[in-house]
Structures are given as structure tokens and as C-alpha cells.
């Protein structure tokens, strides 16, 4: 990314940044508003995490330029994401699977 950007390129980037900023701000308000809705816990979690994921991917894709990043980086991140989910859910699954008298 460091070289090969013309001024016009950058200027169009800047427009994108502003749009993303607006989207992020809007989504923040929406997620707060949604938390006051009378949703069940499951639905609430799902909605909040979905919005957060959208926001997160906006930041990653545009501010961090992931959308046009080299394949190598994408591969490393995918590997990381894989292990992240393993770390997130297998301990939990294993805990639920635990033999235990209630």
C-alpha cells in the first residue's frame, strides 16, 4: 500500500473513510437503541454481536485496508481466526460435556 498511490486515489479513499465513519456512528447508535428493546437474551446477544461484527469488519476492511491487502496477510489472519474460534468454543463445549452431578 505504501507506494503506487496517486493523489486522486487517496482523495477517493478519504471519501470512503468518511462514509465508513458515518456508518460506524450510526451502527453504534443502533446497537445501543436495540439494547433497550425487549428482546430475549439469545436474540439480544445475536443482534449485538452481529452489529459488532459488521462494525468490526468495516474498520478492518477500510481503515486497516484489509480489503485490498496481500494474500499472505489474509492467510495469516484466517489461520488466527480459526484458532480464535477453537479457543472460544471448545473449552466451553468441553465444560458443558463435563460429567457432573447437578
Amino acid at each position: 500500500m505504501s507506494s503506487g498511490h496517486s493523489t486522486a486515489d487517496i482523495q477517493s479513499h478519504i471519501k470512503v473513510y468518511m462514509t465508513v465513519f458515518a456508518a460506524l456512528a450510526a451502527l453504534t447508535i443502533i446497537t445501543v437503541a436495540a439494547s433497550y428493546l425487549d428482546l430475549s437474551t439469545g436474540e439480544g446477544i445475536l443482534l449485538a454481536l452481529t452489529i459488532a461484527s459488521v462494525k468490526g469488519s468495516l474498520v478492518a476492511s477500510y481503515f486497516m485496508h484489509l480489503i485490498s491487502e496481500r494474500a499472505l496477510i489474509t492467510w495469516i489472519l484466517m489461520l488466527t481466526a480459526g484458532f480464535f474460534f477453537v479457543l472460544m468454543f471448545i473449552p466451553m463445549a468441553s465444560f458443558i460435556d463435563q460429567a457432573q452431578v447437578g
Partner: protein
Amino acid sequence: MDSHNHHEEPFYRKYIWSTDHKIIGLQYGITSLIFLLIGFSLMMIMRWQLAYPESAVPLVGSIFGEDGMLLPEIYNSLGAMHGTIMIFLGIVPLAVGAFGNYIVPLQIGAPDMAFPKINAASYWCYFVGGVVMMSSFFTAEGAARSGWTSYPPLADIEVGQTMWLIGMIFLITSSLLGSINFITTIIQLRAPGLTWMRLPFFVWAQFVTSFLLVLAFPPLEAAAVLQLMDRVAGTSFFLPSGLVVSGEVLGVSGGGSPLLWQHLFWFLAHPEVYVLILPAMGIIAEVIANNTRKPLWGYNSLVFAVVFLGFMSFIVWAHHMFITGMGTAMSAFFQTTTMIISIPSIIILSAFFISLWGASIRFNTPMLFALAFLPMFGIGGLTGLPLGFAAADIYLHDTYYVIGHFHYVVAPGTIFGLFAGIYYWYPKITGRKMSELLGKLHFWPSLIFMNGVFMPMFIQGLAGVSRRLWDGGLEYAHASGVLHWNEFMSISAWLLGLAQLPFIFNIFYSLKRGEKVDKNPWGATTLEWTAPSPPLPHVNFEKIPEVHRVAYEYSVPGRKRDFTPQTEPKKG
């Protein structure tokens, strides 16, 4: 870096706060060898206690109390610190920090690591971590005494653990900085023509190792932070409600889970065991290819196996937790992955064995250690199999069988691999070979006494003797039939210690008196042997080498020499 003025660098810039990967490698190497010695010394004291539980420790006994007896709490401290020092301060810094730092840039034809300053920072983090760990022995509370695994609630309530946690946070940071550096270096700084499949296997091993460190260490860092919070901020991440310790209800809010720690800990600690073994395997590969005078057999499958091994090592961790009451689904999952992960190890070992066929084997000291590695690691790896079956593990878990299993892989396994590496690369570092005679004097007794220490552990383990027993099982009836082995193992351990003297002597002796050799004394093909010995400060090579061939072109029919360096251009 400032390559043009390296001649005028003051002493502290050159040897202390250096950014040259070779100096940092040596710093790592010396520090970690000293830690190995410390870790081993702790164990020699413990082995006294295990062999003669009712008598005062000779020589150093007075440190432990008036009558020179080793108290159980001190025994536990020594045990926890032996494990911690050996793994985090000894083997990993030696295998990754020292060998990785010194050899990897040379083998890929790079002038230095990608981030020299971060490299130095990594060493100093390690140093501080080590100092914190060691100084914990001298605090009022003493050193950690909850095992290297630091299972809460014991670790939450036992004294001495805080320093351990702080030390670990430094060590983890050091490893992270180091391994990010390695990956970047290997990806970015390979010399022209050095494609992935032309890399020496050692570089592949370091590459996978670094990935394991980058992705597996942070969860332990998180866990260490949580345990630190439990200890200093009164939280109860790992403490459930309603604990009664020494008759008092523990005054914490509760609601935590001890199993959480175990998951986070083993999420690192299983990959960690491959961090211990892969660099050693890499060294073995180099030494074997060189001293069989023939290419490694099945290079491609070796690379595939090591990458697959690295990947799988993230999803087997709970085989250390079968006995925590795991249900059917999870135990099936983890048993299966454990069995799957044994296959790449078998592939790697088989490739090494087959490489010997048709060779012209030179039995010099590095090769002896490399050859001994194979069956020794084999024994260790094979005894991992019964542990991997949950049903068998019901009986074998936390017995000396486990201790035997992993010592075979780390002591006569990894340590032998590292010895091989030291003997092999010593001429590159100093321009002189180590004495062969002293080397053999080091090798043969080491091999014999290693087995003397660790073989009987399987017998004790089969008898069901638990680990971490202060009296070595004296209390227990079921241990009575195998108790006599304790003395045998301890004597072997002390003799093993003696067997290290020729090695220590050799290191210093050969520095001055060793046979002077040119830059490629072993007739090797890889790039490090095209650099001067020692390689030039900061830049390594007179000129960045260009690579034209795969890593191990030995004994190619029709060539006049039995090795063809990677830099030799192809004709026509």
C-alpha cells in the same frame, strides 16, 4: 543497520546492548545454558530427597533448614521451578532464541533479523523474566510451589506464585517479540533464489515453531493476567464459591472455574511441547543430512508433516485433562486428534531412519547425538500413545509414566538434539572445532545415564506411583515394589551431572585450543557455511549469496565433490 561503523562500536554496544543477531543468539545461548544447569541442579537436590527421603541433604542441606532436611514445601518449590526453568528459561530460549537467532538468518542468507532492535528487546525481556523467576527464591514467600502447571485454586492460595506470574508475563512477551521477528525474517529476507522448498529443514522447523508461539502463547498471557488478578485484586476467576481452606470459608465472591485455567494453560502448553521438539528435529535433520552424505529422504513429506503437526497441535490440548471428568463427546474428539498428531511425528522419524539407508555415515560427535536422538525420542513418543487413549490414561495419568514419557522426549530427545547442534555449529561460531575426544566422553555416559534416570520411571508409573511426591512414594503401599528404583535413578542423575563436565570443559577448552578450521569444515551445503567463521558482524556475508539449488545436494552421481553448496550456479 549502522554497518559502516561497526568497528568503532563501544564494548557495551557490541556485546551487551547489541542488535546483531549473532551476539543476541550467543547471549541467549549462554544465559539459557546457565539456566539449564540451574534447573538440573535443582533436580539433583530433589533426587536426593527422592532416594533418601529420611536423611539430610548433603552439601547444600543447610540452606533448607537446621537439620538439612528438605521440607515438602521446598520440594514443591524446587519441582515447580525445575519444570519452569527447564522449559521456559532453558530449552525454549536455547532452541529458539539461541539457535534460531544465530542460524536462521545465516541459513536464509540474510544480513540480520528483520527487526534487530526488537530482537534485542526480546532478549532483555527474557533476561528480566529470568531474573524475576530466580529472585523469587530469595523472597520471603519463596518460589512458586504449585507445579509448573500452576493449577488454581492451589496456585491462587499458595504463596510464591505472584513472582512466577510476573516472570511468565515477561517471558511470554519475549517469546512473542522473538517469534514475530522470526516469521517476518523467514518470509521477507530469504536470499534471492531461496524458494520455500529449498529451505533447510531447520528453517521450516523454526518457522512452524514461531507460529506456535505467536498464536498459542497469548492465551496463557491472558490466563496469567487473570491469575494475577485473582492473587492481587481479589477476583475469583478460577475460584468457585464456597471453598473452605484450612477450616475457613474463603472470603471471595466465587463463581469462577478452575477448569478455565486448565484450558487456557494447555492451549499453550501442548503446542509448547512441540516448540520444544521441533527445533531439535530441525537440528537433527541438518546433522543427519550432513553426516550421511546424502539428501534427507522425503524432504517434501517432512515439510508437510511439520506444518500439519503445527496445525494439529492447537486442537489436542485437552488430552492433559481427561481425568477432570470429561464427557464422551469431548474425550472422543481429543483422543482422535491426539492419535492423528502422532502420525506426522512418525512420518518425520521414519524419514530420518530411512535417510540412513545407503548412506556413508560419519560417526562424529554431532552425529552421535543426532543418532541417539532417534530411538530416545522414539521411546518418548511411543509412550505418549497409551497416554493419548483416555481409557489407559485413567490409570497412567499423573504417574511417573507421564514423567518418563516427557523426559524421554525432552531430555535425551531435545537436549541431545541441542547438544548435536552445539557441536555442529561451534566451528561456525568460533572458527574452531570442539574436541572429539571430550565430545565422546560426554556422549556415551550421557546416553547411558539418561536411560538410567528415565527408564525406571515407566516401571514406577506402571505401578501407579504418583508424581510430585515428596517422599518418592514411601508412604504408599502400592509403591513398595518399585521403591528401590529411586536410588538407582538418583545415582544415574548425579552421574549424568558428572557426564556434563567434559562438555562444559570442552566449550572453554576448544575456544582456545580447538582445531582451527576453514569456513566449511563438515563439507556442508547450506548457506551458513559460505559465510566466514565467525560471520561478519552485522552483515554476515561478504556479499548476499544467491541460491541455485535445493538444500541437500550430497553425493550427486557424477560430481567430483560429494556435496554441492546451494550457492553453486547450475551449469548450462
